[in-house]
């Protein structure tokens, strides 16, 4: 009895041709010189893409910071702070939505939210649901803003999508400078221009903070301390600016708060700060600071301690209501001239109410400063403002000549130039960028607009391009060696039949890759692992069949009937065994993020194609050979 093999061969040939067709763009793409961008772009849609872990890139999940959004929207919020804090805790403890927690808190505390959220409704529940809409709306708008920024940054094939109600996923593959991309995505772009407080106002605020700390350390009441120090400052005004070369000593952060009394030098240096010993007793806060060319410098070591102090409620209360303290956007090195190099962050005391905000900016562009000005040759960003903005800007600058104005982005001061002249026409310049790329990015952010709500990066995975290259090299090497080992093993163990199985393995690998390229799936490192496992599965199916055939042969069956019986008996087992793996793959796909999903996809398709190759194709080959050569002894 001869099986009609022609239709089977046609089917197999068709499958192989189709796979070759589906894979050819990929092969062509990766063989093309990266310089030939046009050709590569034409192919791009049909190639098997490499995941972030293989070509480098950045994966970021952002979430609307709902508590902050609500706080921003509320009026008279000072009455609400306690409820906010309680809701935050409650949301965490009970695992509920922050807004639901806020509703519960508001009802329990008898707070009429309508007083604070005037436009959002009357009933508390009504306001909460309006806030929910607001946060969802904020995400949608943020999506637009981020998309705009990425477009201008110029990344090919970015993935920017919404996840759930208040999250956004941004995935940029093949980015060479992930740090830069990350900054571009995350900046909220809240641009403000605020006047600096006068130095004497700042000095008295610092003194007040000193006193708050001192009273905490010594237990002396604040009022009595105030009287003493104010007298002192008047009598010895020269002490206001700490001498440049002072006796620094390292003390622990705790000591500032008066909690440690043991010798500080024995403590580990990890949590120590640099203070000016001469004035530490008297002015514990000022001792952490340095006078750096007229600005308040904070040595890097002290930043954490200063942040902690500034975050204290008692300290906040001691500051004038209209004053806000903000940090410089980066540290600067003020060493040299015989002094040891030291890096400082700078603190600025500014008007809480900004003179002008970034909403008036109509265009922004990056360039090098020109002419003979102080910014010549430096990267800067030029701004244009709308009419209203130009008028306000002219008024603001005109009225404050010779004062300093801070240019603040996302609560960080980029520069604080002195106003020399009234600026009319709405043009202005932001300086203080360290590279033209930074200036370019800033202009992109300002052009694309601000994020409509504070967003927080809750997950970030960045793979540098070199690590990706290493991974792909190692991954490919592993798959090739593993593959060769299996091929040799099968050929040795099952001889001719093993070679047929090897043929099936090769076909199987190309089928999986072809399907993935067609589905526009992405090959990840775990995906490579999935491929290797697929090889294992193909082998398993063949082993099951071969062992069965051997059994049948040892029972004395003819080659032909042993093959038939072997296949039909093994089939059931193979299906049962593979379906369970498919279930695992589907679950993985459902639950997995990026790389794991890649594994699930390859595993899923690999199992399907392995059934096709291991059962259908090898059987066809077996049948062909046994028919054609009238085999009486099977090489198995």
């Amino acid at each position: 009895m001869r099986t009609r093999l022609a239709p089977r061969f046609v089917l197999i040939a068709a499958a192989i041709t189709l796979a070759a067709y589906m894979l050819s763009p990929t092969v062509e793409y990766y063989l093309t010189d990266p310089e030939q961008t046009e050709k590569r772009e034409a192919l791009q849609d049909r190639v098997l893409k490499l995941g972030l872990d293989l070509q480098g890139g950045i994966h970021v999940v952002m979430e609307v910071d709902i508590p902050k959004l609500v706080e921003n929207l509320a009026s008279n919020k000072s009455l609400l702070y306690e409820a906010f804090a309680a809701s935050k805790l409650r949301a965490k403890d009970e695992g509920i939505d922050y807004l639901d927690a806020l509703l519960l808190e508001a009802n329990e505390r008898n707070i009429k939210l309508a007083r604070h959220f005037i436009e959002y409704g009357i009933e508390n529940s009504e306001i909460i649901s309006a806030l929910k809409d607001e946060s969802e709306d904020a995400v949608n708008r943020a999506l637009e803003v981020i998309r705009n920024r990425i477009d201008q940054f110029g990344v090919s094939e970015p993935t920017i999508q919404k996840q759930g109600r208040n999250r956004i996923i941004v995935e940029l593959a093949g980015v060479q400078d992930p740090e830069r991309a990350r900054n571009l995505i995350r900046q909220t772009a809240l641009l403000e221009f605020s006047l600096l407080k006068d130095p004497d106002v700042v000095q008295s605020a610092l003194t007040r903070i000193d006193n708050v700390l001192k009273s905490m350390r010594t237990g002396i009441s604040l009022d009595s301390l105030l009287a003493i120090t104010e007298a002192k400052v008047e009598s010895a005004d020269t002490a206001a600016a700490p001498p440049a070369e002072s006796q620094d000593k390292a003390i622990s952060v705790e000591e500032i708060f008066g909690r440690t009394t043991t010798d500080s030098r024995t403590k580990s240096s990890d949590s120590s700060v640099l203070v000016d010993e001469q004035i530490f007793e008297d002015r514990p806060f000022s001792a952490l600071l340095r006078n750096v060319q007229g600005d308040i410098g904070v040595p890097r070591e002290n930043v954490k301690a200063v942040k902690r102090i500034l975050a204290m409620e008692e300290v906040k209360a001691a500051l004038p209501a209209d004053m806000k303290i903000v940090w410089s956007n980066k540290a600067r090195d003020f060493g040299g001239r015989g002094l040891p190099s030291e890096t400082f962050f700078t603190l600025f005391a500014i008007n809480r109410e900004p003179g002008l905000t970034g909403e008036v900016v109509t265009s922004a562009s990056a360039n090098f400063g020109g002419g003979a000005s102080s910014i010549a040759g430096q990267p800067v960003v030029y701004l244009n403002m709308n009419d209203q903005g130009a008028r306000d800007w002219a008024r603001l600058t005109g009225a404050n000549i010779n004062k300093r104005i801070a240019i603040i982005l996302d609560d960080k001061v980029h520069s604080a130039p002195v106003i020399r002249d009234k600026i009319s026409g709405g043009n202005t310049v932001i300086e203080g960028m360290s590279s033209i790329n930074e200036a370019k990015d800033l202009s992109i952010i300002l052009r694309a607009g601000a994020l409509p709500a504070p967003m927080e990066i809750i997950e970030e995975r960045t793979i540098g391009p070199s690590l990706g290259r290493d991974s792909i090299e190692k991954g490919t090497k592993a798959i090739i060696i593993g593959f060769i080992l299996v091929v040799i093993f099968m050929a040795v163990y099952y001889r001719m039949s093993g070679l047929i199985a090897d043929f099936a393995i090769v076909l199987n690998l190309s089928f999986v890759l072809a399907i993935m390229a067609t589905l526009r799936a992405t090959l990840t490192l775990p995906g490579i692992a999935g491929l290797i496992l697929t090889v294992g599965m193909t082998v398993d199916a063949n082993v099951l069949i071969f062992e069965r055939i051997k059994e049948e042969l040892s029972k004395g069956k003819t080659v032909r009937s042993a093959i038939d019986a072997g296949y039909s008996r093994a089939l059931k087992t193979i299906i049962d065994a593979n379906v369970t793996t498919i279930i695992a793959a589907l679950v993985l796909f459902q639950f997995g993020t990026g790389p794991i999903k890649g594994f699930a996809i390859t595993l899923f398709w690999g199992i399907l194609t392995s059934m096709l190759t291991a059962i259908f194709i090898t059987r066809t080959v077996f049948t062909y050979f046994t028919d054609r050569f009238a085999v009486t002894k099977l090489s198995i």
Partner: protein
Amino acid sequence: MRIIKDTNIDFTGKRKIGISFSLLLILIGFISLIAHGGPRLGIDFIGGTLVQVRFANPVSSIDVRSAVSSAGYAGAVIQQFGGDREVLIRILEEEGAAEASGNLSQTLAEGFVDNPFEIRKVVRVGPKIGEELRGKAVLAILAAMFGIVIYITFRFEFKFAVGALIALAHDVIITLGIFSILDIEINLSVIAAFLTIVGYSLNDTIVVYDRIRENVKSMRRESYEIIVNTSINNSLSRTIVTSITTFMVVFTLYLIGGEVISGFSFAMMVGVVVGTYSSIFIASPILIEWQARAAAKKRASLTSS
């Protein structure tokens, strides 16, 4: 060529030894887990920041540590990694991990002026996400098990599903225990490996089960124990050949696949061994115990009526 000739090893007769051995392994695993205060979860599940930095020239982890703590991350864990030029810096969430990667790159640039470096990888997972992923991972493993039980019940009988399920739990618990003993971190890709182990171990179990189902029909006169034992022996050569090839492949992956995938492939290696063992000594013997109990019950109800 045959590694395994027709065998007739008394596997089921030694099931008590097998089960005791497994219980011992599980116990040791549990002790280690308790001693370590639970499995060692990676950044993916507890939140925090991991930065992988490669320097142009060799560095000492002590220098890196002092630079990192000067940036304000005193509790950071520094780990030398794949040679003396690469370090892993781990910062827990409480230490302000959100800003860490930016701050660190600046600090390192200042601290190692003569030793240029490259940030190879940054993973930051917020605490909320970590919690979510943890929940999802457990859910995924449970869901996979549930789906598989349904399928086996449908294709075989319920008692097979129970046997398979116990074998699966056995494999996952033992692998977890081994990870704990060796103090290897559990991250997302290890979870993927766990799920693959679930799939693989089941593959093995089902091959034997299939044989049992077949032999039950052809060996009616024999006792259930003999049927099970014969079935294990029948499929033994397949079990061993497949395990060898799979192990070979996963071992290659472990040796040369790079650090990124080593956790995954290690889990798979353990899983292949444990999975093979469990389908012989756990999954099938359970059927015998189940059968014996069911028979006793039947007899009891017959005599009482």
